[in-house]
């Protein structure tokens, strides 16, 4: 039974972050040498640099990539849901996000408490964004990464439902503690 349910539904990404959608675009994400699958565990040190994201599609299509953390600051108390880590617009199909316009520079995962999910969502744009899109009405782009709402963002800029999504887990790495020999 559980095998037939999409991992995005099981991991509550659909529901907390986005609405139910049909995946139409293939997306592959790679941190260094590790390819991402839904729900895999990534160390924050490995994810400190922006991943290599390949979005399939024709070169005429434009995509928006959003990476958020719906479990900030802690999964049992997500008061800062969601924390936006990365926002890139005007990515041509079949290319990297470096060919798009970065609205919010990449911030690596830094989960203080618990195991956080980090969700990458891709929307297809209907038209090119001329000015950097505002994250919230009347708020400067660089103001605050917290309390971002994917659905509100999509509605405000007429992006519709996402075309692809992926999530991974990360938790705080323990520094090597020298244990005294017993």
């Amino acid at each position: 039974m559980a095998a037939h349910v999409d991992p995005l539904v099981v991991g509550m990404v659909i529901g907390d972050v986005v609405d139910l959608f049909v995946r139409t675009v293939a997306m592959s994400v790679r941190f260094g040498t590790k390819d991402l699958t839904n729900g895999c565990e990534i160390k924050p040190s490995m994810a400190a640099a922006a991943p290599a994201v390949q979005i399939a599609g024709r070169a005429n299509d434009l995509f928006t990539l959003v990476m958020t953390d719906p479990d900030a600051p802690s999964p049992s108390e997500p008061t800062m849901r969601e924390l936006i880590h990365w926002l890139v617009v005007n990515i041509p199909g079949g290319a990297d996000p470096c060919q798009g316009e970065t609205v919010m520079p990449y911030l690596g995962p830094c989960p203080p408490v618990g195991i956080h999910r980090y969700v990458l969502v891709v929307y297809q744009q209907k038209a090119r964004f001329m000015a950097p899109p505002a994250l919230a009405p009347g708020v400067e782009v660089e103001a605050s990464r917290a309390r971002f709402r994917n659905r509100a963002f999509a509605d405000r800029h007429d992006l519709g439902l996402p075309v692809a999504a992926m999530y991974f887990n990360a938790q705080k790495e323990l520094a090597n503690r020298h244990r005294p020999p017993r």
Partner: protein
Amino acid sequence: MAAFPSASPSPAISASTWRMASPRAALPALRPSPGGRLRSSFAPAAAASVGCLGSFSGLAPVSNLLSLGAENSSFEHRLFGIDARGRIVAMRHGRRVPKLNRPPDQRKALLRGLTTQLLKHGRIKTTKPRAKAMRKYVEKMITLAKDGSLHKRRQALAFIYEKHIVHALFAEVADRYGDREGGYTRIIPTFPRRGDNAPMAYIELV
């Protein structure tokens, strides 16, 4: 640090309005789980061994088999258990308490520690049998908190290792789980652990 949110969950989605049939229909079919294939490969082995047992009668051969069965079960994760009559069973019939390979005092301490950590962090990663064993105790704690009286609070304090977690739980459970009847946890299986290939799972508060 408080373990529970004071904000109520987003009203846009409530889990009770979905049925699993619609995601299954809407989303592309995934590869079948490897668990299905594993189970089918075990079943013929179990049937063969139980069939051999059935043909034996008399005391001496049974005691031989008992010792063999005990060795097998300790070696292989208790695939075959022994019931009160000394017969080998491969299914979970009648097994109520997960023993977690520990004596009772250690088992209780392990479960107390795990529930404390889950209530503190909201989501933890542990082995699948431990996650499944934990559910009962986590939900019991949340039920005690829903009642909220002094006696229940003291019972919770006797179980959970950190008292600030108990106080935070009692303060915020009404907002978070007031409407939900049971089912306060969710288990999501994940990749096995590298050192010993133990099946791992995330357990989280819903």
